[in-house]
């Protein structure tokens, strides 16, 4: 044994705790300075009215008092109707969107579709992802007019961008065993999809479908801004009339409905993904 290797083994106090030198991460440091500089530049360049910022807290208190001190509860009936319209748009949009994205997303998965199918599909999804839903709705309303149906279609088509991406990612994440087994016993591509991939991926896909509905509930309120109806349209109108007591009611309705839907849908999703609560595990025979 050489002297260098035996040295730490000897209980000499000098060698006991020699802290190694700190690693010098020059590149990381330069990068972090650069990022800081860019952020500071953005803060400096953005035309922010600082006097408005200073006035902001008092504004918020003032308008919150207008909205929530004496909400106009007589608008609740109309608000409920419009909320149901928004939820309907979200639901129909989710069904159409999930069906479309499942049909388009499965061929886009690696190992299912050939390259010349996969790549164009993925490009289409990327383009849809970059299109704001509002823009999609603007195109669709030339076909179906300013109706809630337009909103549902816009949610369906706008949803394809992300939902089809999730679909093919889920299919690709399926462990290859089952699909290989079906292929080895002579299954065709449709049989591989039906018996090898679908049963494994279905719970996750169902859960994602419900999640799509949750997202659509939020987005449908946004689509109301361009006039396809629903709670968003009502909110925009009353905000423009500056009828703050009604706006307060509408915001409360939006928050309550969204949270209730999230809670129900979240519970169902947990049930789908984790299964029922296990009962009687101690029973062996």
């Amino acid at each position, binding site marked *: 044994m050489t002297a260098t290797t035996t040295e730490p083994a000897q209980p000499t106090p000098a060698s006991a705790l020699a802290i190694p030198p700190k690693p010098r991460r020059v590149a990381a440091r330069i990068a972090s300075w650069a990022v800081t500089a*860019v*952020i500071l530049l*953005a*803060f400096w*360049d*953005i*035309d*922010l*009215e600082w006097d*408005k*910022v200073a006035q*902001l807290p008092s*504004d*918020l208190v003032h*308008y919150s008092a207008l909205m929530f001190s004496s909400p106009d509860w007589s608008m609740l009936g109309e608000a409920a*109707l*419009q*909320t*149901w*319209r928004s*939820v*309907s*748009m979200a*639901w*129909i949009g989710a*069904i159409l969107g999930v069906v479309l994205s499942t049909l388009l997303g499965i061929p886009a998965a690696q190992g299912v579709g050939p390259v010349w199918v996969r790549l164009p599909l993925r490009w289409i999804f*990327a383009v849809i*992802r*970059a*299109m*704001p839903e*509002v*823009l999609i709705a*603007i*195109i*669709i309303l*030339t*076909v*179906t007019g300013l*109706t*809630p*149906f337009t*909103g549902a279609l816009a949610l369906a088509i706008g949803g394809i961008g992300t939902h089809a991406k999730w679909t093919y990612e889920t299919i690709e994440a399926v462990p290859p065993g089952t699909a290989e087994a079906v292929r080895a016993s002579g299954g065709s591509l449709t049989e591989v999809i039906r018996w090898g991939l679908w049963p494994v991926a279905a719970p996750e896909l169902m859960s994602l479908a419900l999640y799509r509905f949750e997202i659509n509930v*939020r987005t449908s*309120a*946004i689509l109301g*801004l361009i006039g396809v109806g629903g709670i*968003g349209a009502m*909110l*925009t109108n009353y*905000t*423009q009339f*500056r009828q703050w007591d009604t*706006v307060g009611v509408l*915001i409360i309705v*939006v*928050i309550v409905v*969204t*949270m209730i839907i*999230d809670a129900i849908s979240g519970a169902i999703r947990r049930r789908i993904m984790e299964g029922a609560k296990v009962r009687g595990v101690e029973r062996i025979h």
Partner: protein
Amino acid sequence: MTAADAVAGERSQLTIPPRPRTWPRAAAIVAALAAFTILTTIPAIGGVELDFASIARNWTNGADRIVQMLTPDWSILPRTWQPLLETLEMALVDAAISAVLAVPLSLWAARPTNPNGVARRAVRFVLNVVRAVPDLVYATVLVAMVGVGTLPGIITLVLFDIGIVVKLVSEAIDSADAHYMEAGRAAGGTQTQINRVTALPQSWPAIASQVLYSLELNVRISAILGLVGAGGIGRLIDEMRGFYRYDALGTIVLEILVVVIAIEVASNLLRKRLR
């Protein structure tokens, strides 16, 4: 054949167990979904009127618009630089502000870093409420409050970012390895010290990754915030929509697409380094 042989023969046969009866439950689920779907298609109670006939009648209108968008008018490009820069600056400023605010809030909202149940639930509840309001609803109301400009857009995006970053980071802390924190507690540290020395270094990658994600979302959202007057390239989209300049809209959409993909690629690279 003896009795014992008969028993053995019976045993050796592979009797397939009866299929579990799942169809009543499946039927109930399908019926419930169908009933809900039918309720959403009754116009009288606010449902959506499914008007597939109008698609068959008017689909050429939409096709025309799409063709117009697919022949972009590049002359609009110089006018887009300023609003696009504003959009990017808003996205960046918001990501920075929300990163600063999200650090203490996610420590408050996670169980290991905040053992006080009341305070934790209060923070979580407030954030759930904040998340329940759609972004453009914030923008609409804030524009009416403080006036047209980038300020309502910035507040909207900060609220939105904090909602998702704090939720995802606090969930990451909840599921992270708590042994370091136990060591800290065993060494007699106060909760603040434990959080600073163990929880915070452990959750930096999660925080950075979620902030990058919120930056991506910010670019997409701030592209439409301008529709209600909250600054950015959405203002230009609204203007072009008013003039039915679908060719110009095509240019803007392509531009947003390029920027979004560039940011996605960059943040994916950064996130891989973080792991």
